[in-house]
């Protein structure tokens, strides 16, 4: 199985759609929808075929791309990114489906951007070369810039510009950090290489590690978004069209967290343990801030938006607990959150469709009796959001908290408050829209089986499936997540002493095998 095929099918279908003559524009949606489906099938086959006992990468593709700069076209899948790739393929398919059931202005351009976005996101998840990761990471912005700016609503141009500038400032800092990492870790007379495996093997002085760590953290935290870097979030979430918002909030936000696990912890173990406290503080503050903001918002989208900040705080907490359980919880939580957010935004879009495009909690309410199916689906998703025992989110959050309790009990305790707060905002959101008296804008009507169900049903079904059988994920992710944090965890446990660099050289090597 070659990873290039699922990676480039969406882009290829998008390009074809773009090149269609004006008269055949209606074909664009079929093409790209077909492309996302093909990718999804391929990824499902990968899930089945995945060897969960193997610790290393599978289906590795490795070619020289730019030899002079030591950049490789290097792809691979392991337990860390397998489910992120799967959920990406799923959500893109669902969003393409949701889009295909509706009319869009300039369909060819729209579907081209959708295809490009999928390829870019999948590329960022699959890349095993730092420079290639940066390429895909930045490339993601281009389609989203267009998708928000052209098909958004309200202050869309301003919002999309803000979004791109915020995120690109982060990723340009990461670019500088990545180049510095590649150049400075090259031994004298050695060939420069950005391949992650090579970078992991090479060592870097502690001071250098710290400033490179900060550059990477800037990019990943903006993307997430985490507390002090979320300035772009409210405007962008308000302006973005629903299917794009699902992708933005569900998938894009995970790339940053994934980057920490894939790149930062294994390659910069020293800095990761030094700056662990800083990251934990950011994580906990994000949890509290996001939760508090989420239950004071009137705009339903922003409730979900701020809850994402809190959820990503949890994920960051799990990662920087530097504990195997925490890291695994983080990976599971990434997948869960993507599904939950997708469900929530679709439901909100359906509600808005039943209430004159209103998304203000003040003007909604009382839909449950008029739309029982919608209410049932919403309830499932909302309960998953607040990590009800029995939901997959419960598994994720409990693992994260276990990890935090093991390593840093104070942060664990504060974060537990976040779990309680999640119940408050999730139930408030559900109540305000579904119960209470009928809002002034609400028109009767359940969700449409033809227009809405095809997109929502798969998300909820997968969520239920994961609730029933979380071992499917746990089993496949365990081996790799443990190795990814091994080096940094070893650093944080050992007492600071003169032999710091020596053991940091040794630790990544073990994790390579």
């Amino acid at each position, binding site marked *: 199985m070659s990873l290039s095929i699922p990676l480039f099918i969406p882009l290829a279908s998008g390009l074809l759609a773009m090149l269609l003559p004006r008269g055949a524009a209606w074909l664009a949606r079929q093409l790209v929808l077909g492309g996302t489906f093909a990718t999804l099938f391929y990824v499902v086959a990968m899930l089945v075929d995945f060897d969960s006992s193997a610790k290393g990468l599978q289906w590795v593709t490795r070619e020289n791309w*730019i*030899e*002079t*700069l030591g950049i490789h076209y290097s792809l691979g899948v392991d337990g860390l990114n397998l489910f992120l790739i799967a959920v990406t393929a799923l959500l893109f398919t669902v969003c393409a489906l949701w889009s295909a059931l509706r009319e869009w*202005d*300039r369909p060819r*351009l729209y579907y081209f951007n959708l295809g490009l976005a999928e390829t870019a996101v999948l590329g960022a998840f699959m890349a095993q070369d730092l*420079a290639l990761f*940066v*390429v*895909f990471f*930045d*490339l993601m*912005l*281009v389609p989203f*810039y*267009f998708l928000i*700016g*052209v098909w958004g609503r309200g202050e*869309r*141009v301003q919002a*999309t*510009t803000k979004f*791109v*500038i915020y995120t*690109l*400032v982060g990723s*340009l*800092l990461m*670019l*500088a950090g990545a*180049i*510095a990492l*590649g*150049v*400075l870790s090259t031994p004298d007379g050695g060939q420069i290489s950005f391949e992650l495996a090579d970078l992991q093997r090479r060592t870097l002085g502690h001071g250098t590690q710290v400033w490179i760590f900060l550059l990477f953290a800037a990019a990943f935290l903006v993307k997430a978004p985490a507390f002090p870097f979320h300035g772009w979030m409210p405007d962008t979430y308000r302006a973005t069209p629903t299917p794009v918002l699902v992708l933005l909030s569900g998938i894009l936000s995970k790339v940053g967290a994934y980057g920490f696990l894939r790149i930062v912890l294994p390659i910069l173990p020293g800095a990761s343990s030094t700056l662990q406290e800083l990251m934990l503080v950011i994580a906990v503050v994000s949890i509290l801030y996001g939760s508090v903001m989420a239950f004071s918002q009137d705009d339903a989208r922003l409730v979900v938006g701020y809850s994402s900040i809190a959820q990503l705080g949890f994920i960051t907490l799990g990662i920087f607990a530097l504990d195997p359980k925490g890291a695994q919880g983080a990976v599971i939580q990434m997948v869960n959150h993507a599904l939950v957010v997708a469900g929530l935004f679709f439901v909100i879009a359906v509600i808005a469709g039943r209430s004159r495009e209103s998304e203000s909690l003040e003007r909604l309410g009382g839909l449950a009796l008029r739309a029982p199916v919608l209410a049932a689906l919403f309830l499932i998703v909302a309960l998953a959001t607040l990590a009800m025992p029995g939901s997959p989110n419960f598994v994720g959050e409990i693992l994260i908290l276990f990890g935090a309790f093991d390593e840093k009990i104070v942060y664990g305790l504060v974060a537990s408050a976040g779990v309680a707060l999640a119940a408050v905002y999730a139930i408030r959101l559900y109540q305000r829209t579904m119960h209470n008296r009928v809002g002034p804008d609400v028109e009767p009507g359940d969700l449409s089986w033809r227009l809405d169900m095809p997109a929502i049903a798969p998300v909820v079904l997968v969520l239920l499936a994961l609730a029933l059988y979380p071992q499917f994920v746990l089993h496949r992710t365990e081996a790799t997540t443990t190795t990814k944090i091994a080096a940094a965890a070893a650093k944080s446990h050992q007492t600071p002493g003169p032999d710091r660099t020596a053991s940091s050289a040794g630790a990544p090597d073990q994790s390579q095998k």
Partner: protein
Amino acid sequence: MILPLADVPAPHIDYKGLSPLIALVGGTVLVLMAALLRGRFVQRSLLPLLTLGTLGAAMGLSIWVWSPGDHRPIVESALEVDALALSLSLVFYVAGIATVLLAHRSAALSDAGAGEYYTLLLSSVTGMVLLAEAANLITLFVGIELLSIPLYVLCASQVRRRASLEAGLKYLVIGSVGSATLLYGLALIYGAAGTTSFAGIDRALGDTVSLSDPLLLTGIALACAGLAFKASVAPFHQWTPDVYQGAPTPVTAFMAVATKAAAFAIFLRLFDSALLSAQFQWAPALAALATITIVVGNVGAIAQDSLKRMLAWSGVAQAGYILAGVVVGTQKGLEATVFYLLVYLLMNVAAFAVVIARERVSEWGDGMRALEGLGRAAPWLAWPMTIAMLALAGFPATAGFIGKFYLIDAAVDGDYAWLGVVIVAGSMISLVYYLRVVAVMWMGPMEVRLPSLPGRPRTAKPVGGWSPEADAWAQPEVTLVAVACAAATMFFGIWPNPLFDLVADVGTSLASLVG
């Protein structure tokens, strides 16, 4: 009384190495003579074809002369043909060809006369090639004057437009000050080193001349200032926006890419070859200049509403990025500089081509609004502009990304990591104005409200103001240039290895940097 001299031996001339220059001069003469013929065919078709033929022939000969790692002194070491000279010559030829195509329907052609226009263009290209091949201070100065003087005239060639005349005059005055400063600096360097040849200066600096000799340092400072004028490096950049805006746009495009490449050819030859031993003296100063340039250029571009002015300021900023490659004084820095000049050519020409296509038909001229709704009305122009803007901003999958990557790589590698961070910071600021262009083209209002009876809103898709002449293919040669350059930008962004092979040759061409 006449004293008979002893026999003077004829100088050694390598005619093969000289052949591109001979072709250029021959072509110039031919075009000048053909311009005397009257008739529509000659003026409209024959002259541009002859010019294109000349540039094409020179390009072919340059490729023929090419051999990796070769230093071929021609004309008694006054000129030297190496990969650096040849690769930059390619930039000049391609820029020249693009300019001929872009100027095909320009008002400047009929105002100033087609023959004069093309002749001046060719002489300027000749000067640039001469400059790139210069191996001593004298040929350097001859080259820089031969490239500048025709450009002064070309700037003013749209004689019926006040702004064009003003630009020409401004460029003449400021360019002359720059040339004078440079000349004075070169004279002082000669005074200190006692030789005009670059190789000789390099030897002398390491040997007989003290590096703290005030004569030498003053000379370096003055030469640096003079070159900064030519390359529009801050704080010597003030002329750039005015001249770029006033000059006929094809000439602006030519200046933006070719003159910049020529100025950097000299930066490389003078600083990274002749004066490399004094790097400790000049590198901090140049690094400071680069930083100022990046900041000033990017900040200046933000508030611009004229596309030409915006591109001028962005050109200033880009000069700062490129200067970083010179500062480090390493083989990698040289390669990165040349690489960036090559891709800079592609992305800038694509952008200018779109500006030209629009300013000829739009009532907004070169204003930002001329691009409004271009994505819907003329995708063949909107895509090249989008790609050019994204590439200039350094988005991946475009050659601009790889170029910037390489420059930062070189900066970090040469112990100037902070300069790499400055480049990154500059790119961040630049997003504001590059993305604005993209937003104007694609994200205009979806629907326009039409006057209607109350209670019955009528809307329509905005296509107003688009005449048949505004169609992208009403000016096929301009669209062709835009599409070709944008396609090349994308291609080299995805598969840059041909360019890397090319600059790998260039990397070996300055003996001082090798080994």
